[in-house]
């Protein structure tokens, strides 16, 4: 899966916007949106929010977790724990990137948030790599990883699967010898 595809999925996440126009309810395949009243918060999918934002038709209300204090807490938690901690949004990375790129003026302390989310991401991906490493080095057959987000899985999937495959091939080529040994017995 391409990162852009993951991003596409993330665009379905709902965010709150405050529109500056008035519009009736919209009836879309994915569900009804609106009505839009100027000055009143309304929940819309991210893709619409970004579209409206780019046309300067709305102000995006940052999600509740997109707050320096909360993110700091999460970062500390993430650093403290061995395992992956639950993250406030399954698409936190994509949301952060999209919102900060397009609506950084609506998000207080955007730079700090960017750094914090990047920190969290780095910590988690490092953990992921570490666990993959131990998974392989200990020759485990299966492993369970909770609280991973789609984007995180996506970063490692191809590489991990490919490497497992090639390792399998390597091992399989090694295999006959002990098997042959067994035959001898």
């Amino acid at each position, binding site marked *: 899966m391409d990162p852009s595809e993951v991003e596409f999925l993330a665009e379905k996440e709902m965010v709150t916007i405050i529109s500056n126009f008035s519009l*009736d309810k919209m009836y879309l395949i994915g569900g009804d949106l609106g009505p839009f009243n100027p*000055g009143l918060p309304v929940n819309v999918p991210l893709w619409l929010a970004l579209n409206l934002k780019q046309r300067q038709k709305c102000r995006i209300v940052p999600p509740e977790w997109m707050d320096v204090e909360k993110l700091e807490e999460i970062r500390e938690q993430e650093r403290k724990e061995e395992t992956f901690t639950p993250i406030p949004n399954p698409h936190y990375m994509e949301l952060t990137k999209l919102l900060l790129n397009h609506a950084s003026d609506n998000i207080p302390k955007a730079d700090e948030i960017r750094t914090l989310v990047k920190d969290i991401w780095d910590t988690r991906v490092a953990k992921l790599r570490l666990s993959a490493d131990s998974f392989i080095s200990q020759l485990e057959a299966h492993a369970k990883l909770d609280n991973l987000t789609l984007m995180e899985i996506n970063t490692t999937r191809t590489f991990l699967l490919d490497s497992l495959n090639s390792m399998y091939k390597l091992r399989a080529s090694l295999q006959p010898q002990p098997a042959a040994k067994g035959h001898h017995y």
Partner: protein
Amino acid sequence: MPAERKLMRYGHSEGHTDVCFEDTGRYIVTCGSDGDVRIWEGLDDDDPKSINVGERAYSLALKDGKLVTALSNNTVQLHTFPEGDPDGILTRFTTSANHVTFNSNGSQIAAASGDFMIKIVEVSDSSHQKTLRGHQAPVLSVAFDPKDEFLASASCDGSVAVWNIEDQVQVISWNVLQKSNDVSNSKSLCRLSWQPISGKLLAVPVDRLVQLYERASWSLVSSLSDDFITQAVNVVAWSPCGKYLAAGSVGGFLTVWDVETEQCIEREKHERGYTVCGICWHPSGGQIAYTDTEGCLGLLDNVTDSSLFASKKDKVVAAKKESKYEDLFDEDDDGHFMDDLSVKPTSGTDDDDDDIMPSAARRQKSGTFDDDDDDDTPIDAALKMDKDVVGLPPAVPAVPQQIYEGPMPTRPQKPFQPGSTPTHLIHRFMVWNSVGIVRGYNDEQDNAIDVEFHDTSIHHAMHLTNSLGHILADLSREAVLLACEGTDELASKLQCLHFSSWDTNKEWIVDLPKDEDVQAVCLGQGWGAAATSARLIRIFSIGGVQKEIFSLPGPIVCMAGHGEQLFIVFHRGTGFDGDQSLGVQLFQLVQKRMQVICGEPLPLSCKSYLSWMGFTAEGTPCYVDSDGVLRMLNRCLGNTWTPVCNTQENCKGKSDHYWVVGVHEIPQQLRCIPCKGSRFPPTLPRPAVVILPFKLPLCQTATEKGSLEEQYWRSLLFHNHFDFQLSSGYEIDEEQRCKGQKEQQELLMKMFALSCKLEREFRCVELAELMTQNVVTLAIRYASRSHRMALAQRLGDLALEKTVAEQEDSEHTGYPGTWKKTRCNQSESECEEVQQLGSYREQEVMQEGCLEEQDEQEQMNIQEIGKPGLNLFNKDISHDTLSPKPSSKDGRVNPFKVSSSKAPATFVPSRMTNILDSMTASCKRSSSGVFSGGKAGKDAILKPLAPRPKSKTQTTLLKISGPKARKKEMEKESTEEEGHASQGASAQHSVNIKPKTGFQLWLEENRSSLLAENPDLEETDIIKEAMGHFRTLTAEDRLSWAERAKGQTGEVPDVKKRARVEDNDDFRNDKESNTKKKKTIDTSKLSAFAFNKN
């Protein structure tokens, strides 16, 4: 005498706090671990002045306009009070200072520090520094002897020591406390306190007790205890009279003892059980302010006998006044004067003072006894106290004549703009309303005004420099109105930015006459108004033409405008005991030019003031008081005010508030901004609007009955504006109105069903009286179904009355427009109502049991007839005609929308009518909800209706009013023709919404010939005649006419055909109704019931 515990409020961030009163008791001053000192003008002050003194403040002391704080940065700092300007550092330690206190005359301070030392410093010049060394651990607290002879201190080494200040030596020390290594680990803060004035006793909190040590002998005289105190006592404070001792404990208990009797006279638990770490008495007693380790501030009122303190308070005031004149006399004169004052009452026999006298006298005596070396007479001693202790109440009671015990006048509230935050703020909202936001900035770099519109299609945002210093603003869809107060040189000005003007001059300024200041402004549609300090209301046109001017009966409080309406609140007089006395005026300005409400009192909650007022988007005046109650004008009940929402009920904390920015009646929305710990929001971060629901404060809304009643009355109240808009010539949204009426009738029906279930038949009839005639028929049906014949009988009578009344109404009403409208609403909504019955009945299914099969069939038929009936005159029954039409801007039909109108058609063949009925009903409802949502934005704009009634009926009502006339004809005809047979009211209704029938077509064609034959016939007679002729035609002919009718109405689905068949049935008027008819014409049973009584 129960003390009144006021609710705690957020004061500082979590952590240690301290509190004290200002000398006069007007201000409460707190400090906290956030390093701020806050000055509260009473507990309810929402905008305390904040002074930042350092990183953390551990303790503060206040006297004579000097504010001393002990800070974490190892210093004791001095600030001026109340300005809060830093006035230097009094002393420094090597670690943080823990406690600081003034001596009795405020010339010195003593500070205790974590470096085991106590320092005493002159406040004026930080000279004469004395250091007391001897404690082996950080010093917890210090206390000056009121006679400035001794100083007591408590330390973490477990000792409480008394020092001779002059010699700087320990006089005595008791090892009574638990040892610890630091203040933070100490179980108790151990704040000591000397008995004021005499200094006879020293109170020391020791674990769960408060020990009292006697001066000079330094022996333990008594221990005050209370069973309720379960953890260590943290702080103690003497009442200013020295009679009571208050203590706050770690467990959050506040206890007050009468020291003489050692009785606990008052105990209060902290509302959350937090540790009390600061406590202090009001200088006139009676009130205790306390703070806890969570940063909250609380107040205990009426702690001791209130009458005692009431008189004392007055005495303090008197004393204060005297002290102002003190400079005029020399000491002796003053003394004699005081002497006279204090002697007089001892000989007085006034009843009021009887209870005060003995205690006061006793205490004076005791004071002299233990002052061995003091040979003053008691009165001299009292005088001395007066001189020494500035601001403390003298022990002598006041002269009786000076006591005023009546109600105290309230300070009248200042004029304000609705939706604005206080003017002293640097960044403030000048107005926030449903149009937009005006922000004012007044910092060093910039004095500017930002205007921003919620809907950018009105106008783009504006940034103005505020060179005139505007402080008032209002915003409408047409203009921004700004106003500033006058100065010595410049007159007060009114500036209007008329951005919607079509010429190039978008701005005008008016100077007010000299010495007249604008105090409130508002904008309506095409006009603006300014209320001035000369108690005038000046009306301007939006383009700047001066118009009406009139006087106000009192000082202005607030003004709001909407459309043609002007809403003014002013002071009618002086309020007493915390209440405001406000009056209200409501004008219709432009066309009608009349005063709707003439200065009647404005109802407010107890001891509250007006905090917001304005109009709903639909134009109903409403206002909010400081208790958070929103009241709305009820035009249907003699312009009374109905509370529709209590915003405070939605708050989490007691010091949280909602700041109202707008009220909408359709949909019912109260738009406001939640403010944590304050009454108004800051400009940054940008606050978010939330929507609160309305709720009438009816009784028992938790029960089904209560909640239905609440919904009904709320719905009624929130649809009142339609009548008003109609009467003042505005276009109204018929659809919404119908929806409202339908909702109300529906609620009535539900209540009816509920009362039926509860066997409350009388109540049922009462409810039926509120229903429209059609719904009453449903009610009758319901009653007869549930075998309540007596009820059905009564309802039948009622229905009859209603019909008669309605007919009379229709004959007498002058404006046919309204009548027609209501009628057509009824007929239109009727079909749905009939369907709804299904859902009511669903509740009753269990009761009903068996006879359902046939009924359900009938139900279904109603639906079948009713549904196409809705859009029969739209010529075709594709869903497009019903789907959201004019509001969808480009007129395109959304292919994805789930069309509600399709639903019934697909349901027709089904027999599961009960469920389907409710389903279609809910579909309907949701679809109309869609309309409401979409219209909401536009509702705010009032659309004046130029040549209203005629054009209206012709355009929007065409499809309904057209058939209307014909319907009437039909009605008459059928009643006459069929006599009182089974086709009753409902049958007629099904007739009246039918398309042209064969007979009608025939009639049209043959009318002229008929007329020629019988020129003298009335209209009804013509039809009668025609009917006769038509019946003489052969069946084939009739059929062909029917075919023609069908061709005219276009392709008609099955349902319609059936309707037509039914038509023909009607006209054929078979005496014995065949079974098919029974099936098709649903209402026979019901209508038979209703009209058999004729």
